[in-house]
C-alpha cells in the first residue's frame, strides 16, 4: 500500500494567532526521510516542468532518501539560491506539486497526495543553514575586475547579486528602504518567513563580498548614468512591483482604509505589532474587511487576526472576494491556515462603496453579490453582478489587496528605459538586457506581479546575460516584452 503523505508540524491555530512567530515548523529528519521515500522517482519526472527554475526535484529527493543532505542541498542550489526561502513561500501547489504524477489529472491545484516537495526543499535548505554549506565561488580573473550595481534588494536583486558575486564580480546592492530584502521583508509576514532566515541569506551574500547600500533611492538620489560614471560596468534593475492598486470606488479615502502594502509594511517592516516599543502605529478594527483573493490578501488577513488577538479584540476579520474559492490565486496552504485561524471568507462579493462616520472613518462596506459567468482573459469564470443584491457589511478597518503595479520612480526619470503600457520594463527575453545597453532587469518590474521563484529565475538569466555582456561588450540585443511564466497573482 502507498504511504500517506507526512503532515508537517505546525503551531496550533489558537496559539499562533497570538503572535508573529512562524506557523509551519518543518520536517524533522525522520519525517523528511519518510516523505522522500514516497517519491516514485519517475522515469520522466514531470514535477521538474512545474518548477519555474527547473530544480532537479527527483535528484534532490533521491539524495535525501540516501541521507546525502549535502548532495540534496547542492542539487537545489544549482537552480535556486534560496531553498530555505522558496521552501516556505513558493506556491508549490500551483507549480511542482501540481505537476507531480500523484496529483489527480485536471485538478486546479496539487492533490494532497502529491509529494510535499516544498517541505523537503525547506528541510534541505535548513540543513544548509545549520551546516553552513556554501556553494563554492568560481572566481575568474576575467570577471573579478568588473563592478555591477544591483538596484533593489528583493528576491530578484538578491539572487542576481549572489550569482554575480560567486563569479568574483564586485557587486553593490542599492535599496531605497532602510532594511534589505524588499517584499520578503516588508510584504511577507515573519510568521511565513522569519526575518532570521532572510538575514541568514543576506549575511551569506555579505560573506561572498556583496556590499549593501540601504537608504539609496536610485533615480532620486543617484541616476543610472551616475552609477555608470562611478565605474559600474553593468546594472541590474530588480525594482519590483510595489505600487498598490485601489478599487476606485466611492469612500475609499476614508480613514482606516489602507492598502495591503501599507498595512503589511507597518506590521512587518516597521514592527508595528510591537508598538509602542517600536514607534510606528497600526490601527486595527473590531470588524476588519480584507478585499482580494491573492497571497497578499491572505497575509493581510492573517496579520489582522493577529493584531485583533494581541489587542484583546474578539476575532472578526472577513475576506471578500469577487469570485469563488477555487478561483482564488492565493496558496491553498495559506487559505487553509487562515481558515484555521478564524478568517471568515465571503465569496462572490464585489465592493461598491465605503460608507464613513462623522469623523471620516470607515464604518460600512456596501457590496453587491455576484455569480460566475463566462471565462475571462485569465481563463477563470468572470464574476457577474446580481442586480438588486446590494448589502452592507460592518467594517471599521479595510485592507485593499487587489494587486500591485511596477515601481515607477526610476523608469520615470530614465526615458531611455523602455517600458510597456503597464510600466513594466521591456527586456530581451534571452539576456534580460533592457533598452539601455549594460542595464538589465528582472523580477516583477519585468513580468508584472509574480512569485519569488519566478523573480529568481529571471534574475539568474539576467546574471548570465550580464556576464556574457561583460565578456563580449559588442553583441546585439533583442528587445521584447516578456511575461512571467505560470502562476501570477490575478485577482
Amino acid at each position, binding site marked *: 500500500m502507498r504511504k500517506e503523505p507526512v503532515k508537517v508540524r505546525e503551531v496550533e491555530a489558537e496559539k499562533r494567532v497570538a503572535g508573529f512567530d512562524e506557523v509551519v515548523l518543518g520536517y524533522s529528519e525522520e519525517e523528511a526521510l519518510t516523505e522522500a521515500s514516497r517519491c516514485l522517482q519517475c522515469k520522466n519526472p514531470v514535477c521538474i516542468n512545474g518548477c519555474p527554475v527547473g530544480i532537479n526535484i527527483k535528484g534532490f529527493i533521491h539524495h535525501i532518501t540516501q541521507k546525502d543532505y549535502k548532495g540534496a542541498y547542492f542539487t537545489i542550489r544549482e537552480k535556486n539560491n534560496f531553498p530555505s526561502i522558496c521552501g516556505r513561500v513558493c506556491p508549490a501547489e500551483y507549480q511542482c506539486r501540481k505537476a507531480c504524477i500523484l496529483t489527480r489529472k485536471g485538478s486546479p491545484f496539487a492533490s494532497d497526495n502529491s509529494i510535499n516537495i516544498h517541505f523537503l526543499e525547506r528541510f534541505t535548505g535548513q540543513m544548509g543553514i545549520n551546516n553552513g554549506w556554501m556553494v563554492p565561488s568560481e572566481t575568474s580573473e576575467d570577471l573579478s575586475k568588473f563592478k555591477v550595481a544591483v538596484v533593489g534588494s528583493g528576491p530578484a536583486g538578491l539572487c542576481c547579486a549572489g550569482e554575480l558575486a560567486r563569479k568574483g564580480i564586485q557587486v553593490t546592492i542599492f535599496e531605497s528602504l532602510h532594511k534589505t530584502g524588499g517584499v520578503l521583508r516588508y510584504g511577507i509576514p515573519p510568521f511565513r518567513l522569519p526575518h532570521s532566515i532572510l538575514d541568514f541569506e543576506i549575511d551569506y551574500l555579505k560573506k561572498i563580498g556583496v556590499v549593501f547600500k540601504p537608504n539609496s533611492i536610485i533615480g532620486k538620489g543617484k541616476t543610472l548614468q551616475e552609477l555608470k560614471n562611478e565605474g559600474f560596468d553593468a546594472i541590474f534593475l530588480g525594482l519590483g512591483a510595489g505600487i498598490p492598486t485601489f478599487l476606485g470606488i466611492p469612500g475609499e479615502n476614508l480613514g482606516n482604509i*489602507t492598502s495591503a502594502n501599507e498595512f503589511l509594511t507597518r506590521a512587518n517592516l516597521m514592527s508595528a505589532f510591537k508598538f509602542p516599543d517600536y514607534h510606528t502605529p497600526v490601527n486595527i478594527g473590531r470588524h476588519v474587511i480584507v478585499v482580494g483573493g491573492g497571497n497578499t490578501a491572505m497575509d493581510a488577513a492573517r496579520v489582522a487576526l493577529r493584531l485583533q488577538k494581541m489587542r484583546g479584540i474578539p476575532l472578526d476579520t472577513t475576506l471578500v472576494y469577487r469570485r469563488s474559492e477555487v478561483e482564488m490565486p492565493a496558496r491553498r496552504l495559506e487559505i487553509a491556515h487562515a481558515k484555521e485561524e478564524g478568517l471568515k471568507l465571503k465569496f462572490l462579493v464585489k465592493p461598491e462603496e465605503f460608507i464613513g462616520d462623522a469623523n471620516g472613518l470607515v464604518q460600512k462596506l456596501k457590496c453587491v453579490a455576484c455569480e460566475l459567468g463566462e471565462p475571462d482573459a485569465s481563463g477563470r469564470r468572470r464574476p457577474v453582478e446580481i442586480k438588486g443584491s446590494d448589502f452592507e457589511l460592518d467594517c471599521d478597518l479595510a485592507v485593499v489587496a487587489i494587486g500591485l503595479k511596477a515601481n515607477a520612480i526610476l523608469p520615470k526619470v530614465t526615458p531611455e528605459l523602455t517600458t510597456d503600457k503597464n510600466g513594466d520594463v521591456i527586456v530581451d527575453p534571452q539576456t534580460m538586457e533592457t533598452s539601455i545597453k549594460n542595464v538589465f532587469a528582472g523580477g516583477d518590474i519585468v513580468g508584472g506581479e509574480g512569485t519569488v521563484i519566478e523573480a529568481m529565475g529571471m534574475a539568474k538569466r539576467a546574471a548570465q546575460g550580464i556576464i556574457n555582456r561583460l565578456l563580449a561588450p559588442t553583441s546585439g540585443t533583442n528587445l521584447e516584452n516578456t511575461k512571467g511564466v505560470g502562476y501570477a497573482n490575478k485577482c
Partner: protein
Amino acid sequence: MTRIVEKSILGQYQGARITRFVITAEDVALKAKPGQFIMLMVKEEGERIPLTVVDTNKKDKTVTLIVQELGFSTKLLGSMNVGDSLYALVGPLGHATPIQNFGEVVLIGGGVGIAEIYPVAKALKEAGNRLITILGSRTKDLLILENELKAVSDEFYVTTDDGSHGRKGFTVDVLKEILESGRPLPKIVYAVGPIPMMRRVAETTKAANVKTLVSLNALMVDGTGMCGGCRVTIGSESKFTCVDGPEFDAHDVNWAELTKRNQVFVEQEKHICHLGRV
C-alpha cells in the same frame, strides 16, 4: 548612517519648540531641490517621518532640517545632539517646486511651514520674481527665519495670533487685503503651513481666481509610493502625496478629507507621548 553636525533652537514657547539641525546626507545634499523632502528614522525602532529639505550644502554634503517638536518622533529627534547618529535617511523625495519667473509671487508660511517657504523663496527670487512674503505664527517666540526671508522679499509682512509681533491676526488677513487692494493680482500664491491655514488661503485665492500651490503634510510610511497612506483627493482623482506631490493645486485639494485622514493615529500618538520615553 547620518550624523548631526549642528543643532540650534529657533523658537521656544510654553513647551513648544522649533529646532534646526544640520546633518550629513551626501545624496540629498547633492540632489535636493526646493520643495523636496526626505524620510528620516531617528532610531532603528523609530518611525519613518517626512521632513522638508530646508537648505543644502554641497561642499560639506550636509542638509538643513527644521522640526517642530510636536509628536513623539519629532520630540525624539529634538532630544538628539551634535555628534549623535541618526539611524536612516533617504531622499530627496517628491517633486521639486516649479521655479520660473512668474512675475509677482505671494509666499505664505505658517508656523514650521515657514521652513518650507524659505528654499522656495530663495529660488523664486533668483529666478527674477518679485516676492511678497507673509509669515504667521502663534506668537513672537515661535516665529522662525524672519530675517532670512525678509532679506529675499520685496514686500514683507508678519502676523502673530496673539499680536506679540507684527500685526495681530492671520496670514490670510494680509492676503485678503492684498487681493482686494485693487493692485494687479499676483501670478501665483505659494502657501505652506497648518492645514486650516492652507485651506483658508485656498478659499481666498479661489474666489480671486489666483493660482495657488500648497505643500501637503499627509501621513506617510515609506515616502516612495509603496504604501498609499498619503493619498489625497485632488479634484476627482486620488493622488499619492509622496510621489505625485507634495505640492498640489490648492483649489483642487479635498481639505476635509485630508484633515480627517491625518487624525487616524491620534490615540496611539497620545499613548506613546504619555509614556514619557523621550
